[in-house]
């Protein structure tokens, strides 16, 4: 029997090992190379000779590799006549090294797609091939995206305080990505959010983690066996993952108790209220509407206002919902879909059918387009009967 190296363990240690190297003053790209070499070494050596302290082992080996490379580089530079510049040792960071790594990978100088790729590669420890497959781009393209991102953040000082909000946006993007290769991006985002939550005590980190868990709980109920979308109201609630819901609710309650509300906590609160309803009819729309009001205050986002209109439609009535969307720009994504739904609830089937068909034309993905076309067809079929 060949002993296997615990890949999950290696992946979970990678960010903190990398963070230690960078906090000791290693350049980010060089540190990453050194960690990769240490990981390869671990895969070779550990099966026969498992270390007592895996993390310490990795740090020692990676740091040695980094120093070797730095010396070779310095010697080359001397041969080429460059002055040898000693990297200034960076001051000991007050914040957790792992958190610093998250902040670096989500640095504002990176585009969202670069930040996502770098986070999955560096903090998540996924291979370039896995990330490329998940985002449906050629591996060479993803490799370029990641190496450009590394170069971009190489000059960033590791001890600069960053904003956790940028990290949360990146994790939210990863979670929300609809594509799937052999990597479950939603599960990966949850893993990274959990890891972040252990590194930093921040109610919005908890809020995002809760939000993800509550949505992830519905994953099996969200699509029919043929791949078509099942709207929330029609989902088989028996297929919701109660363990995930309980975990999400507990994390959310602890976060809310700290009284530092943010948009992720508010979104999670809405998801929790849906999760709490035994049937769609028993949904507490009045409370959901209150949370949407909070969300509007926090974000002032047109998308939130549109979703709020749905809650108004349920809590107050479809006419009130339609009034609420009157003020919104109808070029907004999903505006027609929401209007169609509210018109149907108000009993105006011809208008609803027409709007569903228009919404289908503007649908951002195939599953939604098919769903909206089916809604239009359903109403048209009922009228012609």
């Amino acid at each position, binding site marked *: 029997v060949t002993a296997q190296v615990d890949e999950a363990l290696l992946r979970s240690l990678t960010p903190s090992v990398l963070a230690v190297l960078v906090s000791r003053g290693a350049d980010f790209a060089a540190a990453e190379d050194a960690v990769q070499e240490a990981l390869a070494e671990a895969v070779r050596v550990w099966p026969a000779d498992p270390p007592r302290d895996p993390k310490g082992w990795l740090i020692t080996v990676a740091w040695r590799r980094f120093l070797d490379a730095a010396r070779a580089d310095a010697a080359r530079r001397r041969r080429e006549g460059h002055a040898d510049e000693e990297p200034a040792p960076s001051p000991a960071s007050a914040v957790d090294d792992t958190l610093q790594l998250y902040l670096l990978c989500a640095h504002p100088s990176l585009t969202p797609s670069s930040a996502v790729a770098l986070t999955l590669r560096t903090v998540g420890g996924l291979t370039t091939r896995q990330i490329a497959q998940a985002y449906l781009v050629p591996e060479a393209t993803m490799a370029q995206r990641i190496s450009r991102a590394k170069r971009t953040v190489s000059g960033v000082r590791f001890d600069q305080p960053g904003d956790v909000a940028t990290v949360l946006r990146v994790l939210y993007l990863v979670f929300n990505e609809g594509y799937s290769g052999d990597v479950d991006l939603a599960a990966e985002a949850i893993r990274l959010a959990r890891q972040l939550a252990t590194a930093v005590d921040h109610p919005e980190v908890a809020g995002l983690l809760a939000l993800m868990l509550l949505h992830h709980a519905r994953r099996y109920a969200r699509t029919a066996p043929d791949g078509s979308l099942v709207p929330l109201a029609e989902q088989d609630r028996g297929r919701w993952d109660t363990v995930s819901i309980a975990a999400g609710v507990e994390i959310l309650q602890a976060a809310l108790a700290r009284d530092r509300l943010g948009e992720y906590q508010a979104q999670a609160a809405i998801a929790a209220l849906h999760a709490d309803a035994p049937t769609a009819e028993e949904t507490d729309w009045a409370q959901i509407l209150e949370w949407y009001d909070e969300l509007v205050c926090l974000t002032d986002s047109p998308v939130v206002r549109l979703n709020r209109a749905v809650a108004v439609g349920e809590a107050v009535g479809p006419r009130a919902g339609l009034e609420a969307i009157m003020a919104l720009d109808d070029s907004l994504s999903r505006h027609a879909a929401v209007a169609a739904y509210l018109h149907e609830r108000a009993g105006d089937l011809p208008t609803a059918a027409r709007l569903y068909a228009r919404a289908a*034309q503007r649908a951002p993905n195939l599953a939604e387009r098919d769903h909206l076309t089916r809604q239009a*067809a359903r109403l048209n079929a009922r009228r012609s009967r």
Partner: protein
Amino acid sequence: MAKYLLLKHYRGAPAAVNDLPMDQWKPEEITAHVQYMNDFAARLEGTGEFVDSQALAPEGTFVRYDGEGRQPVTDGPFAETKDLIAGWMVIDVDSYERAIELAGELSAAPGAGGEAIHEWLEVRPFLAAPPTIAE
């Protein structure tokens, strides 16, 4: 092996025999149609002939260069454009005849009333790399 692009048009192709907009179908007819398309792609994956497929949103914009230092000129989206691509499937098959056969099967996807749509699909050969042995 040779690659072919099977092009589906929103507009620009001759009218299909069973030509009714999808929102006028019955919901179960839409389900049957989607199922047929999925099964077709899965079958070609099984035979080793599937390469890629992609659906496109109906609205596009024309763009052209407008000179140094200027923003590109955009035009559209056009409602009246003659030709509008809805999506494509790329297949890798042994012969032109096989490409035609498969396009014919794809065109038989069920539509309104459960009847085949008989829509016109465009089959376009890829221009491949030159062969190593040319003489």
